């Protein structure tokens, strides 16, 4: 899907490689300078209030720990539904993001709400297992009621230049998703170069990703303004070329309201209003939410808030 105008691109490993290597290069210094420059936007008063609520509504509230329990997931689900128990005007988060075996608990906890259940899958975070296992992982999550699947690409195959393998894996996962929306995680920190991130973005979009996502949150460098800006440019250009809109999800490392607002500025000034919606832009985060809530309280009361005035979940 999506890639109809680009169908010939995936005809062979060679054609896919030529296509990806034919994408315009990225100058790292220029990209980072642009991201930093947008980071100096000063978002105040009404704009800040708007941005904070928008950011809350875009959060994929995430718990991806070996120690996750049904209790932990239920507690986080409650947080997703009512981020600030003292203020019912706070929007819900976009989704709750869990491991596949926690999907059932999450679905039950969120029943009747608009909050989606997202599940990582495909042997997250490393993805180092057989395709059949990955697909089974996806099937389980979808069967358990996941609305969204966050898959990881095979970085090893990508770095080895086996782009068609990466592509085919995404296509296969997509086929298992059914109605669930597919987020494709590149683990940008492992792809290392911006040229690779641009190539991965196009590869993912051609393969049918509904979302392209920076990272797992499990490596040293996760979402950065620069790699997110680069992915926003990719979805912008992909839409211009194919008419298909793809969402973007920076994940990992975004902890403060200030950071989140910078990302929203990137969205606003790169792809514009069309993406300023939780259907098209997400934050993969956990601690970010409390900081947004404290900032929200500051805006409404004029006083700085503290961690005792938000819930620890």
């Amino acid at each position, binding site marked *: 899907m999506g890639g109809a105008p680009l169908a010939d691109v995936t005809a062979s490993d060679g054609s896919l490689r030529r296509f990806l290597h034919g994408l315009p290069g990225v*100058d*790292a*210094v*220029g990209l*980072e300078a642009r991201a930093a420059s947008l980071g100096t936007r000063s978002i105040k008063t009404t704009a800040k209030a708007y941005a904070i609520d928008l950011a809350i509504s875009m959060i994929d509230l995430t718990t991806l720990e070996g120690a996750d329990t049904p209790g932990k997931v239920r507690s986080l689900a409650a947080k997703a539904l009512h981020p600030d128990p003292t203020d019912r005007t706070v929007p819900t988060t976009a989704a709750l993001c869990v491991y596949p075996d926690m999907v059932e608990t999450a679905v039950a906890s969120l029943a009747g709400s608009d909050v989606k259940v997202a599940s990582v899958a495909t042997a997250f975070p490393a993805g180092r297992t057989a395709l059949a296992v990955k697909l089974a992982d996806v099937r389980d999550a979808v069967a358990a009621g996941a609305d969204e699947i966050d898959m990881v690409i095979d970085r090893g195959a990508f770095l080895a230049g086996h782009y068609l393998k990466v592509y085919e894996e995404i296509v296969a996962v997509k086929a298992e998703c059914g109605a669930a929306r597919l987020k494709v995680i590149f683990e*940008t*920190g*492992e*792809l*290392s*170069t*911006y040229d*690779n*991130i641009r190539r991965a973005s196009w590869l993912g979009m051609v393969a049918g990703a509904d979302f392209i996502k920076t990272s797992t949150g499990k490596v*040293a*460098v996760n979402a*950065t*303004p*620069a*790699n997110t800006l680069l992915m926003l440019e990719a979805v912008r250009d992909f839409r211009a070329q194919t008419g298909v809109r793809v969402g973007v999800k920076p994940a990992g490392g975004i902890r403060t309201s200030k950071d989140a607002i910078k990302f929203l500025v990137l969205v606003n000034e790169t792809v514009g209003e069309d993406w300023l919606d939780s259907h098209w832009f997400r934050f993969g985060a956990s601690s970010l939410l409390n900081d947004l809530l404290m900032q929200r309280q500051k805006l409404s009361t004029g006083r700085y808030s503290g961690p005792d005035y938000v819930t620890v979940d």
Partner: protein
Amino acid sequence: MSESERLSVFKTYKLYVGGKFPRSESGRVYEVTDQKDRWLANAPQASRKDARDAVSAARKAFGGWSGATAYNRGQVLYRVAEMLEGRRGQFTAEVAASEGISKSRAAAVVDATVDRWVWYAGWTDKIGQVTGGANPVAGPFFNLSTPEPTGVVTVLAPQDSSFLGLVSVVAPVIATGNTAVVVASERSPLPALSLGEVLATSDLPGGVVNVLSGRTAELAAPLASHQDVNGIDLYGADETLAKELEIAAADNLKRVVRPHPVDFSADPGTGRLTAFLETKTVWHPTGGLGASGSGY
């Protein structure tokens, strides 16, 4: 007939323009005499049009000469010194006659002149290292300054020092990759015109040096105002003429070297090399090795 009664063969002195030896398009010549006013030769009295042609020739030669490797320019200039060495006798006679000095003093001047040429030949591939370099800018950029030749340079050769002075002002101009239009000493043009013959028989591409003889003021005026000349060394102009020429040179902001007395027997330093160099500074981003190393 004794040998002393043999009728000698005179040389017809000609201009040197674009690697060829034209007469002045005006057809004019003027008498060149020694210090005791004895006739030595007729020299072409070049016109404004000859000056114009010389500028065209110098411009045409600029791309190739400035684009040649510094090593190659050094080789070519050293070849010129070799050819000069072989003509020491001729130049000694001309310098002695022109400047009214003894044969032995003239020979010393010629030796110094050849050595001066060798000195400048060796500079071609060093001046860039001495005057250029990397600049440690405060950012993720590679930043390099390199000197480049200014372009077509008019040189008003010294009026008195007809050979050592001449070479001391011409060699640095071309060593750095410029091309030159040289106005020879008005009174003593013969060494300059003979230098043209040497240049023609060495490996110097035609047009890199063009030699005009004639009235300095008449030739300098159109050269100073010429829009396709990028620099002018006013050494051979007197104070009044130099000021007029400097005013004319401002029309296209030529780089101007004002006339200051120079002891040509002393170490020349690098001043005349750098006078007709432009500094070009090129920036390029460096950045980290990968996106994972960025500092957010």
